[in-house]
């Protein structure tokens, strides 16, 4: 078990799917997370966005040791983490607008601020004409853009994205990367899991590479 003592760090060690993994990411850092299917990328991301807890080891996120905080503090910590899920995980009974507004509503933001931020973000991802559409009425790429908008609308301190460009065309993928790098420049720590090595080459950044549930490259 290893851990980093300060700053925004993510350390994980789980004997189940991934094991003996130790690394640290500095505040405002950017990491690509790569590896073949089944290498453990999604499992590691789940530890990062606190959907799972390690059976062994220690995770420090945004300066907080996750295992030592209350359920309430855990929920508040989750609000500082934006997540783009591989399967989007949108609420099918809510409109695009309401899906994107969810993190802000949970954070008790004013409706005026929610309206301003959500409409701006949906315009930015090219969905300004589909605010009241439900996910089932949208294409896979459009659903992915909603998921991305929901992940970044709360200006998270940590953004974790699992194959965020998987359903996007090149133009949309480019726009997404511009958004992510802009957030990163503003201080958001970013971890993006991808198979798309072209994307990795176009946006050079340190890389965490997994193989067989173990970290085989960091840097």
């Amino acid at each position: 078990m290893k851990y980093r003592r300060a700053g925004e760090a993510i350390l994980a060690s789980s004997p189940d799917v991934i094991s003996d993994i130790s690394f640290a990411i500095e505040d405002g850092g950017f990491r690509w997370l790569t590896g073949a299917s089944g290498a453990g990328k999604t499992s590691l991301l789940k530890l990062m966005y606190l959907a799972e807890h390690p059976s062994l080891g220690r995770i420090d996120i945004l300066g907080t040791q996750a295992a030592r905080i209350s359920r309430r503090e855990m929920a508040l910590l989750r609000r500082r983490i934006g997540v783009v899920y591989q399967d989007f995980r949108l609420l099918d009974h809510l409109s695009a607008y309401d899906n994107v507004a969810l993190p802000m509503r949970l954070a008790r933001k004013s409706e005026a601020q929610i309206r301003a931020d959500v409409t701006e973000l949906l315009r930015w991802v090219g969905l300004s004409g589909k605010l009241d559409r439900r996910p089932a009425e949208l294409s896979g790429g459009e659903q992915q853009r909603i998921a991305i908008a929901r992940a970044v609308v709360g200006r998270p301190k940590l953004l974790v994205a699992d194959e965020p460009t998987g359903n996007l065309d090149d133009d949309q993928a480019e726009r997404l990367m511009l958004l992510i790098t802009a957030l990163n420049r503003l201080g958001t720590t970013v971890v993006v899991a991808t198979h798309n090595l072209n994307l990795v080459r176009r946006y050079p950044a340190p890389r965490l590479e997994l193989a067989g549930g173990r970290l085989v490259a960091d840097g």
Partner: protein
Amino acid sequence: MKVAPRRIDRLGLRSAMADRLLPSVVGAMSFLAVLALAGTIAAATLASQWQGDTGAALTVQVPDPRRLAAAGGIDRTAAVLGVLQATPGVTGARALTGPELDALLEPWLGQDTAKLALPVPAVITASWSGTGSLDGLRAALDEAAPGTLAETGARWAARVAALTGSLQASAAAVLLIVALVAAAVLSVATHAGLAQRREAIEIIHGLGALDSDIADRFAIRATVLAAAGAAIGAVLALPVLFWLAALAAPFAGIVPHPGPPTLPAILWIELPAVPLAAAAIGWVTTQFTVRGWLRRLA
């Protein structure tokens, strides 16, 4: 631009927690609870009435009433009446008239008891406000007219008290069972809603919802449905209560009057408590159920 409503159904609970089945079941529970509640009130009212009347009644039987008493040159009935009127704590002593006695015995011996071969005793009624035993009075009556029997309603009053106590305990047990069943039904409905909306809950949970955010949503829904169901059940129980009140009126000493029967004022006060209690059970049960479920989630 379409502006989202402020109070949206984030978890889709309108479809996850059925708005017909749950109120129907809680309504049925409420119906039973109202009947049990009315039962406790009726038992208390009847007990008060019966104990007051029966406990104070003194009944004296004078066998061979027309025969002369041992002293005074008067018949045995008059002698016993004289003793009763002279005894402190005994008031209103009077012998039943022939027709009154006939009416009293008619169910067992038929009409016109004067023609019976059986000797019928005189019956004297009085009120007894004494606190001690009847032994002294019985001795005095027996001296005036040997074979005279005296009895108060205290023994019956004690039995009535025991009966009404049992009825009230049974009604309380019914209320408790109804409350527990309602809680169980609400818990099952909540679990079903949680299972149905598991993915939505996981998503909202992952976005940073507090346990209270999710539990409150379920609890508000369950509370509204439970209160509505209970209110309907209570209203539906009213015709039954009026019918039972009409049946029970003679036993409660209520003088019949024209118009529909009335219900005790205390019942009108307690009736609104049923939906309120259902709402409280709904809120507490759902909060416990959802928070326990969330603790197992992550």
